């Protein structure tokens, strides 16, 4: 089973839930797709880490072959190409590396070069294989690094793969949930938390994914969140209380499920509920 852990906002507890799910399963692949600020590795401290570069293609134009017909510029739906002085000009941060310009060029003048946009780290902590995507600072699009991290992690075909998604509900999130069998949402019982949770919930439903909720840092049931879940048929699978001990463990990089068997049991129950079709 592939579980994507999401929250509309940052700091809601995605990594806490994702890491503990993998610990509860004992054997799992954990993929950190929050490539702008990957923090799962702070908890895992994986051993034997191997690093490799993630690259993305960028077109270049052979001035000898280019006839200046402009087909590539007119084709680019991302507006990454402009036509100045009878030649195309590319803007790397806007290019999505779709390869369309090379396909439509009648003169075979478009080639591809590769540029580095981030790195991939792979290591192990016991029976958990940890894949971490790291976006290079200054890059605009996280998607190529997320794609590479997913490819590396999913190719292992482990019984459980946990995807730690980026925050928000934009393109990087969409990319990270594409292969998921279940979307586990982590929400805070606050007005802001609910607002962002509803946005990402909408996205998951649009993609036809079964969803469930973990309420994090709960002091008492928050009525607007409870109403939302009832109205939108979003099952609450786990409630995590607001506890100093959890914050302390988090700050120390300690995994709750490894420290306390009760937490491990809670997350094991959560795993069974997701596998049992809690939709």
């Amino acid at each position, binding site marked *: 089973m592939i579980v994507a852990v999401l929250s509309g906002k940052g700091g809601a507890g995605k990594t806490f839930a994702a890491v503990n799910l993998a610990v509860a399963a004992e054997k799992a692949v954990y993929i950190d797709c929050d490539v702008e600020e990957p923090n799962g590795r702070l908890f895992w401290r994986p051993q034997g880490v191997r690093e490799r570069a993630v690259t993305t293609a960028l077109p270049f134009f052979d001035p000898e072959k280019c006839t200046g017909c402009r087909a590539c*510029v007119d084709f680019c*739906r991302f*507006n990454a190409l*402009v036509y100045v*002085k009878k030649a195309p000009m590319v*803007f790397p941060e*806007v290019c999505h590396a779709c390869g369309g310009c090379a396909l439509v060029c009648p003169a075979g003048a478009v080639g591809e070069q590769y540029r580095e946009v981030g790195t991939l780290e792979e290591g192990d902590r016991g029976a958990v294989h940890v894949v971490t995507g790291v976006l290079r600072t200054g890059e605009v*699009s996280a998607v190529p690094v997320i794609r590479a991290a997913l490819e590396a992690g999913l190719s292992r075909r482990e019984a459980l793969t946990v995807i730690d998604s980026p925050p928000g509900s*934009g*393109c990087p999130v969409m990319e990270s949930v594409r292969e998921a069998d279940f979307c586990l949402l982590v929400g805070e019982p606050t007005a802001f938390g609910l607002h962002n949770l509803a946005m990402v919930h909408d996205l998951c439903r649009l993609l036809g994914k079964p969803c469930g909720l973990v309420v994090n840092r709960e002091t008492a049931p928050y009525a607007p969140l409870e109403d939302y879940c009832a109205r939108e048929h979003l099952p609450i699978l786990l409630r995590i209380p607001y506890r100093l001990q959890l914050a302390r463990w988090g700050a120390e990089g300690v995994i709750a499920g490894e420290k306390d068997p009760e937490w491990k049991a809670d997350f094991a129950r959560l795993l069974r509920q997701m596998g049992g079709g809690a939709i």
Partner: protein
Amino acid sequence: MIVAIPLDEDRRSLCPSFGRCPYFLFANSETGEERIEENPAAQAQGGAGLKAAQCVVDAGAEALVTVRCGENAAKVLQAAGITVYRSEGAGAEENLAALRQGRLEVMTHFHPGFVGGQP
């Protein structure tokens, strides 16, 4: 010389956005001819500044008078040899007059653009 100016919905005042202005005014300073065209980049998902700059280049403009302009668009305009002037006041006609009288300054600051969430 053809001068390009991003226009607002009223087709008279300057639009503060270069990339997503609804219209462009193209004014020929020699013939006095003026025409208004829709900006094809107004509703672009991304790369609006680039597409708008392309429109200005294709119109054969040699000057652009604008409230602001992003870095990417500035690169295109520079490559095409188009001078970017900073507008003064709200109306297109008063800016054309100011440009004729040499009262507009060449723009030196280009903002980093609004490319954050790509489509």
